[in-house]
């Protein structure tokens, strides 16, 4: 490391894989890392990898990772100069960002005002319209009157989406197919918005037919300069939550990339955006694009951009926060192809119910072009308190075909027991014809549900049946050996069992 570090010490106001991600970037830059943890995370990987770690409360996020005052106090107490908020939790909380700066610390991200400007989805849409970035047809203002809602919906044409103005990240969305569903959906949407976002205001957007969700990564220096690092295709979603992402997008053309990239830069530059951010767009079947929202933080899926551009995005965040000029070129070229699969603690066979348990028998994939950004370790307790994301499996290939083959290989090498995961579901997606050909949109998972569920082949059924029978046999032998207490290890298990049971295995 040449020269002095950007900061002496940074506190990471997060947990799990993203905390570890930031800690790793700090260590590579010679910066001391300070972690915070709740009582549920005492043994977490991010705590063990950080240079320092401080307890900030009991397991519920509201009393730990969401407690901005406690976090700022911890940062000041340990002498950190800056706070990295990760994603989720307080990362898009404008009041927190402002409070950090008022406390004399650096917030590694945009200003509180910028977070608030883009956090109000209606305001963000209005801004885009003013600067000439296309937006999805929809309302200009929040609607709280059913009659007005009905008229607007009729003007837009069904189907429409009711969205929470304080929402984002795929939450607080209701699709309305026809006028008779409108009232019930409106009432449900308002109450969900009130409880989830403390803000019942909703607005209306036209539902785009078979859209692609394509987003652009940007970096801004906070003084008007913004660069874009290309797109990420995020259309493999379930209930508006991303499952698999890739870049470059198989749906993209050079012309569309140029136009969308320009719009993304315009959008961020309009507010002199500072640090890393993402502009999300919907693209319809005719390749017309529409601004969806801006995420004023680092995204979960940022690694795939890193893999194809060679840029370390967290490092760039730290450089910008330390006041350094942007060195990443605009329209940074993408080389090769990268795919990310989100490994989650959930049970796809039980309606994706969140799963809990203790991680055992963990095997992580490796080899060329494989990257695991995760907080997984043997013995890890998966609890109800936090997001079900266990790890991100990222692969890189020279082209899309190689990347897809590599993802399939890596998913079969990734193994664990003790908690239900969506690994088989992810593998099922990667093995569909549509995914192999890169032909999909946001309706993919719903439409392909039956293709995704694999029925084992005859050979596989035989392998599984044999394995089950053999294991039962061995388990019996081992139990017998242990029961005898006579150094069973010196006898092979089934000889011992045979002797005890008179050759009946």
């Amino acid at each position: 490391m040449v020269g002095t570090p950007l900061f002496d010490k940074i506190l990471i106001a997060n947990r799990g894989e993203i905390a570890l991600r930031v800690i790793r970037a700090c260590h590579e830059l010679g910066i001391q890392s300070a972690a915070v943890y709740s009582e549920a995370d005492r043994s977490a990987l991010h705590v063990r990898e950080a240079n320092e770690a401080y307890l900030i409360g009991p397991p519920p996020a509201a009393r730990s990772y969401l407690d901005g005052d406690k976090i700022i106090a911890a940062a000041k107490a340990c002498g950190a100069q800056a706070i990295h908020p990760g994603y989720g939790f307080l990362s898009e909380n404008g009041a927190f960002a402002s409070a950090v700066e008022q406390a004399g610390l650096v917030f590694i991200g945009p200003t509180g005002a910028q977070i608030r400007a883009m956090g109000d989805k209606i305001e963000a849409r209005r801004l885009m319209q003013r600067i000439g970035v296309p937006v999805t047809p929809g309302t200009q203002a929040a609607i709280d009157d059913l009659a007005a809602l009905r008229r607007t919906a009729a003007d837009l044409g069904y189907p429409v989406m009711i969205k929470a103005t304080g929402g984002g990240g795929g939450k607080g969305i209701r699709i309305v197919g026809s006028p008779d569903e409108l009232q019930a959906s409106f009432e449900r949407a308002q109450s969900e918005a009130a409880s989830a976002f403390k803000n019942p205001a909703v607005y209306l957007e036209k539902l785009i037919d078979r859209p692609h969700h394509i987003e652009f990564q940007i970096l801004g220096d906070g003084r008007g300069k913004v660069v874009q690092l290309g797109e990420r295709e995020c259309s493999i979603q379930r209930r508006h939550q991303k499952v698999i992402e890739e870049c470059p997008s198989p749906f993209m053309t050079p012309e569309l990339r140029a136009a969308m990239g320009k719009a993304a830069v315009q959008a961020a530059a309009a507010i002199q955006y500072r640090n890393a951010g993402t502009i999300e767009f919907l693209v319809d079947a005719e390749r017309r694009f529409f601004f969806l929202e801006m995420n004023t933080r680092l995204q979960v899926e940022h690694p795939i951009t890193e893999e194809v551009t060679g840029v370390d995005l967290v490092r760039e965040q730290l450089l910008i926060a330390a006041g350094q000029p942007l060195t990443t070129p605009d329209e940074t070229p993408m080389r090769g192809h990268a795919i990310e699969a989100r490994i989650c603690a959930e049970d796809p066979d039980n309606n994706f119910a969140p799963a809990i348990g203790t991680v055992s028998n963990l095997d992580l994939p490796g080899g060329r072009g494989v990257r695991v950004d995760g907080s997984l370790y043997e013995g890890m307790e998966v609890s109800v308190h936090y997001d079900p994301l266990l790890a991100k499996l990222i692969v890189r290939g020279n082209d899309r075909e190689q990347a897809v083959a590599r993802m399939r290989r890596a998913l079969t090498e990734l193994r664990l027991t003790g908690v239900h995961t969506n690994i088989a579901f992810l593998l099922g997606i990667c093995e569909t014809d549509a995914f192999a050909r890169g032909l999909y949109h946001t309706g993919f998972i719903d439409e392909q549900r039956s293709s995704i569920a694999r029925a084992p082949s005859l050979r596989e059924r035989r392998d599984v049946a044999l394995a089950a029978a053999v294991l039962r046999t061995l388990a019996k032998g081992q139990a017998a050996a242990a029961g005898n207490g006579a150094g069973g290890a010196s006898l092979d298990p089934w000889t011992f069992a045979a002797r005890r049971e008179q050759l009946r295995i």
Partner: protein
Amino acid sequence: MRYYVQIQSQIEEVEVTRAGEQLMVAHGGEQLMVSAATIDQGARYSLLVAGRSLDVIAEMRGSQMLLIVNGHSHRIVVEDERERAARRISGARSSSGRQTVTSPMPGVVRAVRVSPGARVQRGQPLVILEAMKMENEIAAEGEGVVETVRVAPGAAVNQGDALVVIGPLLGPNSGKERT
């Protein structure tokens, strides 16, 4: 010893006998030699089935097993002859066939979709539970008729708390086996 392995509602019969240091396994008219090496404390094994390499991780819970074979996971039921015979006898005799649907995680009941007397299908949503910042559908595992609903919207539940009790479609001795 013969085993009955249920994989996705179909049963495979497998016979295992000792053959020196290996095992002889018969299935579907084929006889195969299997070499088994224990990798770790009884949860991980390497099987060579006539040369074919199977990496196996297993989690056993009574007759239920989670098997990960070469990275593909399967939830199966394994019974030996004695267990299978015992289950069939008790199945024919008792058969209250009652399922108590319990909450898989702590959370708050947001909605109840059924009431006593309702006939439900496998997979039919019974209760909407809010947990881990998401709404989760708790569904019926088998066919039946709702006997009792133990919760109401707004109720906070712990993992394992009873939500809905579902009785069999027909009377006792229906002879239906639970899969």
